[in-house]
């Protein structure tokens, strides 16, 4: 019996993940370091992303051999490796993450012995385990749901006095201070706390406990929000970056209600945003758009908005989420596995098309590409205006997926 909701077909995997893997997300915990304990193959993509995006100096790998797995010897080796790392690096990390992979789920390991031993040897260090286990995605939490929650678990259980802080959960890209969400908060004396900010310290991570409100920016962060509610009594507000005007207005209204803030002129904000989008639609004329679910978790909402402003949307490509764009919530992300099997031939570029997201761009061979991943952390009216700029840029300066990929290759100098 087929138990995985894939419709009984093998799964097509695309290589476009915006450079965001589980390690890069976990390293959003400031001043942390990762020790991967896994077969070499599991850590390869992690380390190559780290080289590509410049954080390899925060990742080490203990490569498991067949002998290690059979003998169970790697429990001791993990402690030895952690100690070698801690003894040889400066400055010392505040948190050491032991990252394990699918085989760990199969072996049923308990790592508390290792983390306790390591913390005993290095007082002040927070050592904990995170799991990269896509194999459990149908038998436990979705991996992204689990990761977001597991990143909050190591916070100390002691309560902190509440401050005028609103913490952002679930988005991997630091916010732009120009977006209306941040402006509403800062104009009213609140700190927008996002541990992805440049220069964030470990203390900022600990400060999440002091927030008055947590904003859940992506559906898969709601488990983390629930944990923080239970542990610190901090309410959570869904603030998903759905690209439809009604949802945007609702999220802003809900935020203002929750914090008892004056409501900004939403009609004016919507009118200004519509005008920007309509102008862009006129400029690009008959150019057709394709949207995929790596660009936004709500591709159908974006399609509706764009079409209402005069854009021509050819198709929506959804992978891993329901094509009908349901109300997505933690744990209920419906996984409609991709069932496409015919990929475009080499060099088959469709003229006058722009892919919003690298998957639609590569799959359909669009002439231009809006290279964003999960909204690029640009929400609401501000997000739509930024997207409009990106569409126009892709129209004026079209690059297909292969060109973007080649552009991203790094120069080597002897």
């Amino acid at each position, binding site marked *: *019996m*087929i*138990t*995985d909701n*894939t419709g*009984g*077909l*093998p*799964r097509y*995997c695309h*290589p476009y993940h915006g450079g965001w893997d589980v390690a890069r997300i976990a390293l959003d915990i400031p001043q942390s370091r990762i020790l991967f304990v896994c*077969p*070499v*193959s*599991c*850590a*390869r*993509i992690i*380390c*190559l992303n*780290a*080289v*590509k995006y410049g954080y*390899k100096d925060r990742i*080490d*790998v203990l*490569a*498991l*051999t067949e002998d290690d*797995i059979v003998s169970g010897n790697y429990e001791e*080796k993990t402690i030895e*490796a952690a100690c*070698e*790392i801690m003894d040889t690096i400066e400055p010392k990390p505040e948190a050491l993450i032991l990252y394990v992979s*699918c*085989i760990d789920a*199969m072996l049923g390991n308990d790592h508390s012995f290792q983390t306790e031993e390591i913390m005993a040897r290095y007082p002040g260090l927070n050592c904990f385990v995170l799991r*990269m286990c*896509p*194999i*459990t995605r*149908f*038998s436990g939490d979705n991996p992204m749901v689990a990761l977001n929650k597991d990143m909050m678990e190591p916070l100390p259980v002691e309560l902190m006095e509440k401050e005028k802080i609103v913490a952002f959960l679930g988005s991997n890209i630091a916010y732009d201070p120009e977006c209306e969400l941040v402006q509403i908060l800062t104009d009213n004396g609140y700190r927008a706390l996002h541990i992805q900010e440049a220069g964030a310290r470990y203390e900022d991570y600990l400060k999440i406990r002091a927030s008055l409100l947590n904003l859940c920016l992506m559906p898969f962060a709601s488990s983390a929000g629930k944990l923080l509610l239970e542990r610190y009594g901090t309410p959570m507000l869904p603030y998903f970056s759905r690209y439809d005007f009604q949802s945007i207005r609702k999220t802003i209204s809900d935020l203002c209600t929750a914090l008892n803030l004056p409501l900004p002129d939403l009609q004016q904000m919507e009118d200004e945003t519509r005008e920007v989008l309509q102008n862009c639609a006129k400029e690009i004329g008959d150019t057709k758009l394709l949207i995929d679910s790596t660009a936004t978790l709500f591709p159908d909402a974006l399609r509706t908005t764009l079409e209402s402003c005069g854009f021509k949307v050819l198709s929506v490509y959804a992978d891993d989420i329901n094509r009908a764009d349901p109300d997505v919530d933690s744990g209920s992300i419906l996984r409609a*596995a991709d069932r496409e*099997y*015919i990929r*475009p*031939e*080499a*060099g088959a570029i469709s003229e006058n098309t722009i892919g919003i997201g690298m998957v639609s761009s590569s799959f359909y061979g669009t002439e231009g590409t809006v290279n964003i991943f999960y909204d690029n952390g640009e929400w609401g009216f501000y997000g739509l205006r930024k997207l409009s700029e990106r569409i126009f840029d892709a129209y004026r300066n079209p690059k297909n*997926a*292969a060109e973007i*990929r080649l552009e*991203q*290759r*790094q*120069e*080597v*100098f*002897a």
Partner: protein
Amino acid sequence: MKDLYRILPPFAPDYGGACEVMYELGGLVLIHDASGCTVNYVSFDEPRWHEKPGYVYCSGLTEIDAVMGNDDVLIEKALRAAETLHPNFIAFVGSSVPMIVGTDFEGIARETEERSGIPSFGFDCNGIRSYTEGAGKVLLELVQRFTGEKTESRGILLLGQLPLDDNGTDASARLKAFFPDVRASLCFDCSFSDLRDAQNAEKIVVVSRSGLPAAEYLHKTYGIPYSIGIPLPKAVSGHGSTLVIGEDVRAWSLSEALGNAKALDIFSKEGLSDFHTADEDEIAAIVEGFDNVIADPVFEPMVRGNFVPMPTVSVSGGIFRDRVQALDTAGIAALLV
């Protein structure tokens, strides 16, 4: 500490090499994993993914299917996909979880072939061994299964060439340019008929260690002579001691062409090279004694002497641009001190 990687990323694993061999041969390939291993392959180990269609998919292995040994799911998925794709063969490729639960890939392949009539293979890769080992095993089995009666003796057959050995999809043409009468190169820039006609080669050249098991088989079965190594032009240079790091046959070939050079093979335990290790501490100790080190850019932090970057997909996954091309002996020699 042994097995601890502080600087280097892990290198391409066996399933990457296995899938690369089959990529252009019209087979349906299922990596038996949850998704991470397949994403690893398509993201960093297969540069052709962006240019040529290929039928490598993920089985979508789940925890419950792994625990229960529910292999029927895998077979069903392959059979359903085969109805659409009409592949030349079906191959199941292992990863780390199937290694833990002891999946019987040969049995799965046998049952798939019985039910579909399509030649089927099971390769017990585990994500721990090197890409050359995985590729070598697959190429050998394919050659054993698909070659037939020898009807002619013509041209050179290159064995073992893969995109992982170099740094781009144009690398195949550059390698072929070193040989006068190439009939085919398995398995890069090739077709299924090239595989079926492999027995008709007059001579075989093994251009990476991945090609050696198949070369030995073709020699034993059809009497085709083979040689190992790429005949690169000799460099004229008065350079100091030099170390080439990479795949065994290619590193050795370059070191021979440069002169005053040794080769360090990071993918196998034996071969033509002077050193064989993938251990970071051992590599660090070896590189210390050389004036020049030619290697993928990720090795640069380990090198105190003159470093010449030579990116390869098997190490850095195609994220670096070339400064000099891997087989350009003169260009590389010009950068030595």
